[in-house]
């Protein structure tokens, strides 16, 4: 996996979280390791996070990306809450939100219209995820 050489020593920082009561964290841990191997700093905040906790952590840790994994079906309730809180804190222009897990296509479209940048469905190759993030980072840095 390619390591990103960011300009002026800046590293890619991404927060990974699981929202709601879904207790399956193997997938997100695999993603965390893959992104670490791609040279990123991964702030892993663990299971059962609330939208408030995620947005607050993202602000404190000054990340460029948030990756949320949901397998419980609660995405249409929880993700808009995250987006709303980010707008309230003025973070929506600065931090990209990605989703992973089980998100039906129609819901994915709706959420992307609300501000989610990308939904990585199950089976997305890890390299693809890492490269997408690295490309987005270059665009944001420019």
């Amino acid at each position, binding site marked *: 996996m390619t*390591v990103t050489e960011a300009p002026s020593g800046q*590293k890619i920082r991404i927060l990974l979280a699981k929202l709601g009561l879904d207790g399956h964290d193997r997938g997100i841990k695999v993603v*965390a390791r893959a992104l670490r191997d791609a040279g990123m*700093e991964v702030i892993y905040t*663990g299971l059962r996070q609330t939208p408030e906790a995620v947005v*607050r952590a993202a602000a404190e840790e000054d990340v460029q990306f948030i990756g949320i994994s949901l397998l419980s079906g609660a995405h249409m309730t929880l993700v808009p809450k995250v987006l709303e809180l980010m707008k309230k804190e003025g973070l929506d222009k600065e931090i990209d939100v990605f989703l992973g897990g089980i998100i039906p296509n129609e819901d994915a479209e709706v959420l992307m219209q609300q501000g989610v940048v990308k939904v990585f469905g199950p089976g997305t190759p890890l390299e693809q995820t890492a490269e997408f993030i690295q490309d987005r980072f270059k665009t944001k840095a420019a």
Partner: protein
Amino acid sequence: MMDNQTSNLSDQDLTLVEQFRQGSRRALARVISRIDNGEDPGPWLEALEKPGVSTTPRVIGITGPPGAGKSSLIGCMIPAIRKRNLSVAVLAVDPESPFTGGAILGDRIRMGRHTLDDSGVYIRSLSSRGSAGGLSRSTRSVCRILAAFGFDLILLETVGAGQAELSVMDAADLVLLVLVPGTGDSIQWEKAGQVEIADVFALNKADLPGIDALESALRSAIDTGFFAPCPSERDSPEAHKPKRITLSSAKHSIWDGPPPVVRTIGNEGVGIEALLDKLQAGLKLMTENPNPWRSPVRRRLRAGLEEEFERRMRVMNHDQERMEALAEQVRSGACSLEQAIDQAWDVLHKINA
């Protein structure tokens, strides 16, 4: 000199400075990122530090072997600290992958339970990127930034695995060493030099077997200045040789007597109040009866000098021609090694930024 540094900040940066002064946590996070990314902290410190604040002892370094339960302990300490009406910032420094430079910073998980809606708590994860020297300097600067922002206490957590992590403790005013029973009878922490730097000891997971043996070995080492071999080592061939370890040797100790040892159970919150009492007592002693060896300013001076020396050494080492010329002089007998070192020293002296 002062104006010179601040004028290195762009207009955008000055907006950030203003927001920081207004108490914006977002601005705080961004300034920390700038320093963490390797920017010269000088102009930021110049612009943000209030005189006197950053020299008040308030940084508690928390170290210990992996698996000691430091993060969980901190997770319990945070609400207890808040109950004492103090604001607290936590800096969690995690190791970085030596191959890719990436890191998984997961200490937040165990710490963040109590922090929602509480602006009296701030948690930040840093990875130990770059050289030991670089990490040390940026960690020290970030601690000063957190003090400037107004946090009463700063907890600096790092894994006490080696020299790099140990140098992070240069940023701490007071050092808490967290140990657990059963992590190797040979007690490697003694060799890593961590014991000498500790002001307070927390014996965590005190509900596990071996806790009594750990405490008595530690106390006896503290009391006698000798290392007491652990039960399983008594039969080893080395057991009869006393190893002199000076724990909290007199001139560096802040205490009038042996350093405190507190039993804790991080997962259950047992012993936390007693631990906080000792930590606060230590900081109070440092503030009111300052031991000149431990003053924050003395420490920064020393650390800064060491880093400056290392930086100049790196510049020297890069100068292949000169180094080779010196080496050749020694080989050929034109001068002695000591004379060559004197010459090199003259050059080192003249290297500047």
